[in-house]
């Protein structure tokens, strides 16, 4: 197997008496979709936040492309190639779709501190933004204000903004949330090809999508990874069946 792009080594995090992450070690290798599943309150969000840099782990390390980024904040991790989408769309609602994509492209260019040139005239960044919008199928909506988009289109825009960063790894927090059948199907198809651009760590409740997409699945329960493996392996894992279905092992 190729060297992992993203690794966590023994991440632990406690909020008072609640152990949200217990000694979690997972990794993400090139070309794969690694799904992170688990019941509500299992600690998926806490883990994602620690990987993205919004929360500091009590112990353990986060490695991105061979570099220890544990001490770095969200901004620095993004600059080093971590592309993230949010469960609840975090978009500039007053701005147009193109402007949102441009924001990503400008961030990726590393040159946000230009004061007098028109942002939309920055040819390189503009090309990156437009290409990302085309990839998710939002070219028609470039001039639309984001608050006018449908829920599904906002999910697409979330992904497009992450794409503009040309990240080394994607972290996607429930991208299917709130999408209808058609929307989920389209996005599933899109993510299926996206894994070859960069591997995806996918937190998702939609099991159909997870089973269709995941190369590997890690199951998180009470802050612990109780199983990691292929779809088949995880499905047949007695501990997982106990956790999910309440069956006796």
């Amino acid at each position, binding site marked *: 197997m190729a060297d992992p792009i993203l690794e966590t080594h023994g991440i632990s995090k406690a909020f008072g008496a609640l152990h949200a992450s217990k000694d979690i070690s997972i990794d993400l290798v090139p070309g794969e979709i690694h799904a992170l599943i688990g019941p509500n309150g299992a600690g998926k969000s806490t883990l994602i936040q620690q990987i993205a840099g919004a929360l500091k782990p009590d112990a353990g390390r986060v490695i991105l492309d061979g570099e220890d980024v544990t001490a770095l904040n969200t901004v620095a991790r993004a600059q080093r190639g971590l592309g993230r989408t949010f469960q609840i769309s975090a978009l*500039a609602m007053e701005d147009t779709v193109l402007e949102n994509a441009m924001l*990503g492209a400008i961030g990726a260019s590393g040159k946000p501190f230009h*004061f007098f040139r028109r942002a939309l005239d920055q040819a390189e960044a503009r090309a990156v933004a437009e290409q990302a919008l085309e990839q998710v199928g939002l070219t028609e909506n470039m001039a639309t204000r984001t608050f006018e988009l449908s829920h599904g289109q906002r999910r697409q825009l979330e992904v497009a903004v992450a794409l503009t960063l040309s990240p080394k790894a994607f972290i996607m927090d429930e991208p299917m949330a709130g999408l209808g059948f058609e929307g989920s199907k389209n996005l599933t198809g899109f993510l299926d090809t996206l894994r070859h651009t960069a591997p995806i760590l996918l937190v998702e409740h939609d099991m159909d999508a997870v089973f269709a997409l995941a190369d590997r699945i890690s199951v998180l329960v009470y802050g612990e990874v109780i199983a990691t493996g292929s779809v088949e392996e995880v499905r047949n894992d007695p501990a997982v069946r106990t956790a999910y279905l309440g069956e006796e092992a």
Partner: protein
Amino acid sequence: MTRERMVNAAMLLILIAFPLWAWAADEPFMITLATKAVILALAGVGLNIALGLGGMISLGHAAFFGIGGYAMGVLASHAQNFDPILEGPFLIEGTNSMPIIWLTAIIASGLAALAIGAISIRTTGAYFIMITLAFGQMLFFFAISWPAYGGEDGLSIWVRNEFPGLNTLDPIQFYAIAFTILCAVLILTARLAKSPFGLALNAARQTEIRVETVGISPYKLRLIAFTISGMITGLAGALFADLNRFVSPTMLSWQTSGEIMIFVILGGVARLFGPVVGAVLFILLEHLLGGISDYWHIYLGALLLVIVLFARGGIIGVLAGREAKHG
């Protein structure tokens, strides 16, 4: 042309036609009134960068306005007394050259904004409001208790400072200077809003976490915006002091901060011309209502209440609708 642009163009036309009329009719007081409006508009344009574009509710912009004013007062008073500011290790003399005074005002208020911003921007919401207010008050008390430059009484300058090739004592020529500066700053502000920086700053106001996630530090964006904002308001302060040939701690008071904010809100927050329309309206009200009643602030307060409670978007919002921004 959007309706907002038409409102802006009309405003510009008024700012050109009215002083020319006053000049032709030999009404120097009216020109001075217009000059005051233009300078206060400039202060508001400065605040609008922090407030409208950056979403930072600064109640301390009088600090920068006053620092600009004192930059003028200190330099000009040393020049008029032929008393160097510093003799050793190297000589710094006063000056009555406007360009040097402006530059000094911009640098001094920029440094103050950088320092105040560096602390305040670590916080958000109500904290930010109270802290900027408090720092403004700090400079106010400092100016009162520092006896060297007039303390509570302020500093008077006998003759208006000079600008090469112009007679600044002629009201219409001084107006031309102030108006040209306002136009230049409006152009810069419009470009700033459309620039990559403006795009990111505006996004950080709406969704901080998104901006972080694309690798841009919202803190840095805001600190730079706050500093630019302070610089412009400081420049306005220098001009304002020159208009009155007087600077006092009043320029640093919390009421001044509140009034600068009123210009922005009356006109329309985050609108390019919002502070201009607001300042003109403010001066108009002061002139008209102030003539009728000594207690015109009651009416101003009532008007402000009505606008805040019922007409969000200010005058431009009412005239041009809500759709356009940063036109």
